[in-house]
């Protein structure tokens, strides 16, 4: 047995150690890139009020695409909040995807909807559109009623009907910063090569929401939400800006992303997938390389979309499993990109890094823990080594979270109270003592269920939303932070 360990397991242990070192170096590079990117951005927007864009006749028009399914409880407030966004040429297209509750009635009575028959090109095939309504009170509000076809189908229907030069896909329950669109539109004005731009998603648990708007920005006080807040900070202040500088992002959250409509139409819009938001970005970038057309993806750190995160382990486990399943699906669909020089930085750096440091991370981490335990049992590894190894894994996690908190401290400080930010430090430490190991297990389950061929979203229950069966959940879950480290 000892011979077996020395021959087979020990080299794997060395590999795991080498992986940890490589991971550390990779994150160091990512962090330095993120810090530089944030510094540049903060300098660029200091004292910027975006007033020129607000009142400009030539600012690009934007259509907000809002898919909704069984959201009668929240849809009125969500649409009201969208109507108060400050942007000059804004159209809001809400798609009721065959809701079985009173979503459409709620919209009709609140916004004085009347049937209309806009002439639009059905560029992307969708389920049957039963009726289109326009608000008499808010002429920029369009509501589409269609047969049930899922989130991607709803987004495609909205994409067909919308008229904006840019389209912004959001979840119905997402709360946007009032001037978020003005900030997010800037990369599109700056360069015609930009086809999509993503923004930061933050955890709204703990914040006070009044009439669809954020009344106070408070950090979560419960451990589960608090730890997720740290994860989101790490993903959006550390990973995304870092990738922005290193070679472009591979992920824009479906909860808040802005796209050039024409590019979405050219690539056939959204496809039905658990990770449709990530899939879309990879497809857009791939299409750009294949056709020689522009395909830059930008990340803008300060427009913020606030979202509610799961408050129970059960829901969280389903979410994380789904994210990693979606992530696996996207990587498999686009496997030809992997180490393919035809796709430039995407194929040779970004895609492999996502496979190696994001997709494989739970496999390696679990292997490391199992092998060290095995070595300990077989007497091949000393207790000191095992403890130090575990401390190293936790330490690296804590360091990454702390670095994200440092970036937050010296940049936006959106959780305004010092007490809230101090609490984030506590969550950053706690995250690595049990929670992270759980997420490894959930992500492994995601990979396993993908291999088994599970394609549905699974059941889900969240505060304020009514749950139902498979594929029968409100469209409020995206692969927002599939990559919570990078």
């Amino acid at each position, binding site marked *: 047995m000892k011979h077996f360990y020395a021959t087979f397991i020990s080299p794997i242990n060395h590999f795991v150690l080498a992986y940890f070192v490589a991971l550390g170096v990779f994150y160091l590079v990512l962090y330095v890139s993120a810090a530089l990117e944030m510094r540049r951005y903060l*300098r660029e927007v*200091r004292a910027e009020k975006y007033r020129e864009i607000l009142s400009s006749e030539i600012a690009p028009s934007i259509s907000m695409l809002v898919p909704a399914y069984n959201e009668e409880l929240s849809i009125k407030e969500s649409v009201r909040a969208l109507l108060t966004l400050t942007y000059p040429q804004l159209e809001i297209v809400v798609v009721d995807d065959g809701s079985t509750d009173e979503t459409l009635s709620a919209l009709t009575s609140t916004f004085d909807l009347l049937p209309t028959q806009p002439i639009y090109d059905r560029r992307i095939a969708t389920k049957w559109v039963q009726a289109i309504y326009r608000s008499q009170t808010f002429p920029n509000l369009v509501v589409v009623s269609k047969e049930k076809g899922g989130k991607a189908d709803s987004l495609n229907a909205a994409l067909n009907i919308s008229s904006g030069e840019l389209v912004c896909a959001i979840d119905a329950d997402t709360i946007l910063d009032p001037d978020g669109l003005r900030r997010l539109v800037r990369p599109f004005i700056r360069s015609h090569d930009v086809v999509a731009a993503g923004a930061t998603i933050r955890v709204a648990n703990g914040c006070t929401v009044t009439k669809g708007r954020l009344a106070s920005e408070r950090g979560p006080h419960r451990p589960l939400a608090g730890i997720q807040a740290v994860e989101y900070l790490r993903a959006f202040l550390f990973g995304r800006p870092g990738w922005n500088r290193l070679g472009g992002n591979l992920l824009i959250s479906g909860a808040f992303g802005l796209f050039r409509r024409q590019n979405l139409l050219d690539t056939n819009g959204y496809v039905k997938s658990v990770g449709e938001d990530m899939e879309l970005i990879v497809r857009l970038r791939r299409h750009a390389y294949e056709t020689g057309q522009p395909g830059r993806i930008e990340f803008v750190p300060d427009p913020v979309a606030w979202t509610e995160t799961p408050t129970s382990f059960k829901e969280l486990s389903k979410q994380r499993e789904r994210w990693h399943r979606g992530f696996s699906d996207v990587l498999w669909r686009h496997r030809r990109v992997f180490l393919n020089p035809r796709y430039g930085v995407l194929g040779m750096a970004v895609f492999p890094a996502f496979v190696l440091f994001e997709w494989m991370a739970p496999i390696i981490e679990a292997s490391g823990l199992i092998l060290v335990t095995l070595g300990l049992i077989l007497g091949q590894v000393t207790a000191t080594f095992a403890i130090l*190894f575990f401390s190293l894994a936790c330490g690296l996690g804590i360091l990454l979270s702390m670095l994200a908190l440092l970036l937050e401290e010296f940049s936006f400080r959106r959780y305004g109270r010092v007490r809230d930010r101090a609490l984030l430090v506590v969550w950053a430490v706690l995250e690595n003592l049990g929670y992270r190991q759980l997420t490894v297990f959930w992500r492994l389950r995601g990979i396993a269920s993908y291999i088994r061929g599970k394609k549905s979203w699974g059941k889900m229950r969240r505060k304020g939303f009514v749950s139902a069966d498979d594929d029968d959940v409100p469209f409020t879950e995206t692969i927002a932070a599939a990559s919570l480290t990078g």
Partner: protein
Amino acid sequence: MTPLGLVVVSLTVIGSAIAAVLIAVAASGLIEARRLRLEPGLGDARRAVITALSGGESKADAVCESLRGSAKRHIIGVMLDLAPSVSGTSRSVLVNLGEKIGVLGRARTGVRRRRWFSRLYAARVLAAFGVESEHLCTLLTDRSPDVRAQAAAWSVIAPTPQAVENLIALLDDADGLCRFAAEDALIRIGLLSTEALLDALEVAEEEIAGRILKIAAATGDERFYPRAMALTTHHSPHTRAMAAAVLARTGDPSAGPALVAMLDDPSNDVVLAAAAALARLAYWPGAADVEPLLSHSSWDTRKQAAMTLLALGAPGALLLGVNARAAGPAAEMATQALQLRSLSVEAEVS
């Protein structure tokens, strides 16, 4: 190095890094907490500045005194928020306050600084307060695109001939934000920039000509009419399409025949622009020439043809009716347009 050694070294490095980051985060938090305790908050700064604005010049000195303890960033933030929304006496009070507190003095120095972000910030402050500066024209040719774009937005308050000339030069800038800011500024400047734009249009190359015509279409100044008319036969399809847009915007129905002729243009973009222009001018004699476009191979052109016919009133509606009874794509588009019309009428009645 043995695996154990490697782990120990890594752990030491990571532990030290965590300690350093913790100290930095804690120090920053403590400094912030102390500052919040000691200084009057943002609310007080807002109240003081608004008091100054409502009380006129008489209160400016007292307010200046009351603001002494407040953090500079609060005061500047409040002023920058308020500055673009006030005018007349209130603005001069605000500018006076800015001078007394030293915000504007520092900004005037700032526009000459070596670092691009210092120049950018200074230009933003001066632009927000609406203060003129002899450095404006220099900043329009700054090496930083962000500074150039900010200077372009700023130049609206003092559109000197030199500034307008620099703005026109910015239409050819490599940075999209600069081009956007210059186009936007020239539209805001409006009639004052027309002569310079017309001069530039004489010598402009294809892309720049398109941008100038876009500005002309937005301002709708009739002085562009003759030049736009001449450009309807330009070799570049983009320029021809933009010329059609300008003709529509100037609102002169005598452009009708030229626009009708453009419906036979080989470029679909030009056809679309001409049809849209005819709709805007409501040039009903062109209805019969628009009608064949209902059978065009491009969906966008068919849609524009239907919308144009709708906009041309009774003659257009009659032709849509005729086509709706026929077969093929023209019938489908005509039917949809007529349905749209009937729904609009219903909505108006209800």
